C-alpha cells in the first residue's frame, strides 16, 4: 500500500472521530432530534475497509453507520443535515442518523433492524453477478446481527452463488447492554465462514493496517469472481449504545474492559506508527485536523441553517413515481 493511502486512512479515521465528537457535543442542544449511535473507538474498521472500495461499489450499514458513510465518501454536509432532519439532508430529513443514504457513492441506505441489511447487501451482490459487472458490496453489521437467521441465510446464499460481497462484522462485544456471550455460544463469529465455504478471519479491528490488508484481499477476491468473505473485526465502542451517555460501570460494562480498549485507540496507534515511519508529523496532524475542523464547521453550519422539510412533503415518495 502506498503511503498516500496511509494518510488517507488516517484522515478518514480522524474525520469520523472528530465528526462524531462534534455530534456528541451538539447533541445536548436537542436540535438533533433522532437517536444516534456513535462509532467512536471503532473507526479503523470502516476506514480500513472502504479505502479499497470504488465509488460505484456498494456498502450497507446499520443503526450505527456514520463511520461507513464517511469512509465510503458520503457527502458530509448532507449527513449532518440529515441528523438535523433538514430538507437538505441525504434523505431529506426522513431518515435520520440510522438511515443514511448516498447513492452517488454506492450507499443505498442503512437499516436499523438488526441483521436487516445483510440480505440487502447480498442482493446488490447478486445484481453484480447477474449484470456481470465487478462492483463489490460490503455489508457492515454488529455482533448482534450474527444472532439473527438472516446472517446465516445470507451467507449461505452468497457462497452458493459465489457473490461479490464482503461481510464485515464489527464485533464490539455488546448488543445494547447484552454481552456477546450471553447471546452466543462462544465467540466464534468468523468461524461460520468455514462451513459456508468462504474465507473467514478474526482480526484486530483497532489496527487499521490489519483491517486494510484483509479487506483488500477479500475485495479483490470479489472482483475476481471468487466469492464472498467474512471478516470479524474485534473492536469496542467508547460511548454508550445510544445517544451520548456513558454505560461503564455499575451494572453496565466493566471499567477495566473499557480502559483497556481506550488504551488501544485505533487512531492513536496508527498515528504513532505513522510518526515512527516518518510519514506523519505534528505539522501534518495539525493541517489535517484543521482541514477537517473547517469541513465539520461548514457541515454543521450548513445543517443548522438549512430549512426543515415542509409538512406538505409528508405523502411524497411512498411509491416510486415512475415505471421503468
Amino acid at each position, binding site marked *: 500500500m502506498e503511503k498516500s493511502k496511509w494518510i488517507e486512512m488516517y484522515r478518514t479515521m480522524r474525520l469520523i472521530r472528530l465528526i462524531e465528537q462534534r455530534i456528541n457535543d451538539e447533541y445536548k442542544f436537542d436540535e438533533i432530534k433522532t437517536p444516534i449511535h456513535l462509532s467512536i473507538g471503532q473507526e479503523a474498521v470502516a476506514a480500513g475497509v472502504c479505502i479499497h472500495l470504488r465509488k460505484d461499489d456498494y456498502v450497507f450499514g446499520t443503526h450505527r453507520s456514520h463511520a461507513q458513510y464517511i469512509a465510503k465518501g458520503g457527502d458530509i454536509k448532507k449527513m449532518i443535515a440529515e441528523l438535523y432532519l433538514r430538507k437538505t439532508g*441525504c434523505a431529506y430529513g426522513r431518515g435520520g442518523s440510522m438511515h443514511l443514504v448516498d447513492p452517488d457513492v454506492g450507499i443505498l441506505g442503512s437499516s436499523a*433492524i438488526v441483521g436487516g441489511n445483510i*440480505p440487502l447487501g447480498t442482493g446488490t451482490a447478486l*445484481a*453484480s453477478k447477474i449484470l456481470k459487472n465487478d462492483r463489490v458490496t460490503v455489508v457492515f453489521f454488529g455482533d448482534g446481527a450474527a444472532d439473527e437467521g438472516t446472517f446465516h441465510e445470507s451467507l449461505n*446464499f452468497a457462497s452458493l452463488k459465489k457473490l461479490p460481497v464482503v461481510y464485515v462484522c464489527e464485533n464490539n462485544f455488546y448488543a445494547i447492554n447484552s454481552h456477546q456471550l450471553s447471546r452466543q455460544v462462544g465467540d466464534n463469529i468468523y468461524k461460520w465462514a468455514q462451513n459456508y465455504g468462504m474465507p473467514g478471519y478474526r482480526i484486530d479491528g483497532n489496527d487499521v493496517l490489519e483491517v486494510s490488508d484483509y479487506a483488500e484481499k477479500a475485495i479483490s477476491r470479489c472482483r475476481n469472481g471468487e466469492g464472498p468473505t467474512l471478516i470479524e473485526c474485534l473492536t469496542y465502542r467508547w460511548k454508550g449504545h445510544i445517544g451520548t451517555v456513558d454505560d461503564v460501570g455499575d451494572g453496565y460494562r466493566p471499567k477495566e474492559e473499557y480502559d483497556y480498549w481506550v488504551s488501544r485507540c485505533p487512531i492513536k496507534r496508527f498515528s504513532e506508527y505513522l510518526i515512527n515511519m516518518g510519514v506523519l508529523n505534528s505539522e501534518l496532524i495539525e493541517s489535517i485536523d484543521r482541514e477537517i475542523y473547517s469541513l465539520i464547521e461548514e457541515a454543521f453550519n450548513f445543517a443548522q441553517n438549512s430549512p426543515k422539510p415542509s409538512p406538505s412533503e409528508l405523502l411524497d*415518495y*411512498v*411509491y416510486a413515481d415512475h415505471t421503468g
Partner: protein
Amino acid sequence: MPWTTIQVEKLDNFFIMGDSTGNRVLTYREALHEAFDQSLARDPRVFIMGEGVDDAAGIFGTTKGLKEKYGADRVFDTPISENSLTGIAAGAAMAGLRPILIHARMDFMLLSFDQLVNHASKWCYMFGGKVTVPMVVRTISARGWGSGAQHSQCIQGMLMNVPGLKIVAPATPYDAKGLMVSAIIDSSPVLFVEHRWLHKTTGHVPEELYSIPIGKGVIRREGREITIVAVSYMLVEALKAAEKLQDAGISAEVVDLRSLKPMDENIIVESVAKTGRLLIADTGCKTGSAASEIAAVAAEKAFHLLKKPIRRVCCPDTPTPTSDVLEKAYYPTAEDIFKEAVNLVIE
C-alpha cells in the same frame, strides 16, 4: 428503454372474464407464463427466483422451461430462506434489477415480513425516492383438498396495512398477464396475489405485451340493485351468484377491484350510487380482511348512498381446517353470496 414500447391496454377495451379484444384463449396459468416469458425476453433486468422455480413442475407450470430459455442466472432455484430471499431480491432491485420472487404458498411469505415490511416497502419513502425497490413478490394462495392451516392462508388483508407496498389480485387471464407486466415495470414493490383456483380459468388474452394500470377496477357485470365487490377468486363465485340472483329477479352489479392497494375507490362509490347496497366477497378471514378495508372506505365515502348495511362474505375467523367437511363449511361460495344478497335486497 424497452418498456416504453409496451402497449398499455385501455380499460375501455376490457370486457367480462378476460374478454379482451381478439379471441386467443389462454388459461390464467398460461397467461402468467407468457407474461414472464415476454418480460424476460424484453428486459435483461428481469429475473425470477424462488423455491422450485426451475424444476420440472415449474410452479404449477407458470415458470416451466424458462430456465432452459433464459439461463440459470435469470431463472433459479433458491434455498428455503424466505426472509433473506426477500431482502436479496430487494437488494438486487435497489441495484437496478427487476426481480420476481415467487412464494408457492402465501403462508411462506409470513417468514419474510421483516424484509417485506420493514425494508422493501419502506425504502423508497425513507430515502426520499433516492433508492427504489422495483420488485415483484408473487404469491399463491390455495384452497381445499386438505391444505390445512399452514398451506391455505389468504393474508392480503393483513398486507394492506403496509405502506409502500402495492397489491394486485387479478382474477382473469387477461388481468393476470397485464397486471404481472404492470407489476414488473412498476418501480415500487408490488405484491402479486394469486389464487390457485384461478389457474385453470380461461379467457381472451392478446399475444402482445400489455399492461393494466394498477389501482383501476372494472365492472364485470352491470346491475342495479346490489353491488358485489369481489376479491381475487371470489370473483368467480360472485359471477355465479349474480347469475343466480338474476334468475331470482335481482339485478347485481359485480365489481372486480383487481388492485387492492392503491384501491379504486371511485368504482365502488359509483356502483353503490347506482345500487344502494354493498356486499364484499373476500378469500381471507373476515376480521382485518381486504373486505374490512373496502367496507370502511364505503362507510366513509359512500355512506349516504347506502340504503342497507354493508355485508362481508369471507372465511370465518378461524385457521383453515383440513377436513373436507369443515372446509366446505369454511369457504364461502356463490351460495353464501346469493343468500346474503337476497337478504339485503328483499329485506
